[in-house]
């Protein structure tokens, strides 16, 4: 649901993208894929590494890296320190970061109207 506030509108990321995530040790990766090619530039501009780091503040302990795959209209995020030690060490339900993808899709973007 798109909310309008002043000259900007709030758009949930889940309306613009789909995603899948996995793990490498204590790092979760989230591949974020534009639902339509025209959404990809919006993702590139607004879903920055800094924005994603802010979204996951208090949930991950390390930095966020971002890679671009314009050919797939996708971004790949590496969330370091996301899995309580990762793999077998982790006490988390989501020890392998399988649903970090959906947590990222909770992000709300503020886009110009």
């Amino acid at each position, binding site marked *: 649901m798109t909310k309008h506030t002043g000259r900007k509108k709030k758009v949930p990321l889940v309306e613009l993208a789909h995603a899948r995530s996995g793990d490498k040790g204590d790092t979760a990766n989230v591949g974020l894929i534009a639902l339509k090619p025209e959404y990809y530039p919006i993702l590139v501009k607004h879903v920055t590494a800094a924005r994603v780091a802010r979204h996951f503040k208090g949930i991950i302990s390390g930095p966020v890296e971002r*890679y671009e795959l314009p050919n797939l209209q996708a971004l790949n995020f590496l969330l370091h320190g996301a899995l309580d030690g990762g793999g077998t060490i982790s006490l988390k339900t989501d020890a392998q970061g399988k649903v970090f993808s*959906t*947590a990222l899709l909770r992000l709300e973007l503020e886009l110009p109207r």
Partner: protein
Amino acid sequence: MKPQPATVRIAAGQGFWGDWLEAPYRQVTGGPVDYLMMDYLAEVTMSILQKQKSRDPSLGYAKDFIPLMERILPILAERRIKITANAGGVNPRGCAQALAETARRLRLGGKVRLGVVTGDDLLGRLDGLLARGHELRNLDTGRPLADVRDRVVSANAYLGAWPVVEALRGGADIVVTGRVTDTGLTLAPMIHAFGWRPDAWDLLAAGTVAGHTIECGAQCSGGNCLVDWERIPDLANVGYPIVEAAPDGTFEITKHPGTGGRISVAGVKEQLVYEMGNPAEYITPDGIADFTTIRLEQMGKDRVRVSGVRGRPATDKLKVSIGYFYGYKAVGTLVYAWPDAYRKAQAADRILRQRLADLGLKFESVLTEFVGADATHGPLARASAPLDQLPEVQLRIGVRSADKAAVERFTREIAPLILNGPPSVTGFAGGRPKPEEIVAYWPALLDKRAVEPCVEVVDV
């Protein structure tokens, strides 16, 4: 030289150890395929198998591979379908021996050749490697392996496609390996069928991308697919993916007609980004694939064409996966019902933590999750969830410690809460949780020259 086929069809049969047992049978009976590729090994699997082998030296491989093969061996022999599988775990020869016995029992003696790939297992060579200056530093922490040497339980180098190619060239119908990369199991049949050269980096990268696409089985054909998930048809009969590869490195992903699931550009994209690091540098023993060069195109229903893949030369290192004993953990759960389900679970957590502290138990970590409220999305979910009105909440609390006695005592502190803690609690029928040994993962790099793959081909 043998004539080059126009295409080779490689079907994925297992995406991990524990995957759907029906899939391999359906892949070899549902339509024409040339190869069946089965990936069994995740990072933690090798240490589990090593543990089994230490109890019984004839074990240490994916045991359910044998009954599965028993079911399809006659079909394979009749249709001349070949197998590549890393089901050998830490005992590929033991796996091959069990397979040979099964084949002979099915009266397939003289009709099947087995290839066995070993040389990945470094456990017995570790001290020699360390003595010669290979430090095997942890790729994440930078620490040398010497830190945990006395606690190492498994150590395996990731081998690539080439030893599997050698087995196929030797006439093997079934190639059983130890720690060969997931992607190498798909790439090897392409190299073998098309005669690709070891420095044909773009072709090797294309085959690697094909391998990555199907290595998780149905995860690229509609399984665990978020986009349009409710309209993906008939997952009960999901068709596992098939690569139709061409000699020029292009390939199409498809599945057998009449099966469920879906092969779409969006679904294939989801699999391509799965467990991705730097997409421009997907490093394997066989070369580096650049995932930013992949082009995808829907060619029709359940058919996606992949082209444009570029690659770069392989590095002079192999990745090594080392398992080492880390400590113990246990997880206990209780379910609290409405009214005030969330607050009751929170209260139980506070009481339990106070009791653990009063007992003087020391843990490296105590982690509480409220399943139904925050277990998957943490504070992001709590911000918007109707926490006062949740119909039920599962308290899930886990502890980790080097001290087994502390973890054991923790497991005895869950059940008492049923009668001496907050009300409306249930869901403890499973009994007391069991302390679990933690074997942690130590990724490292090793000079390629220090590893010598061994390939044997034997008649059954």
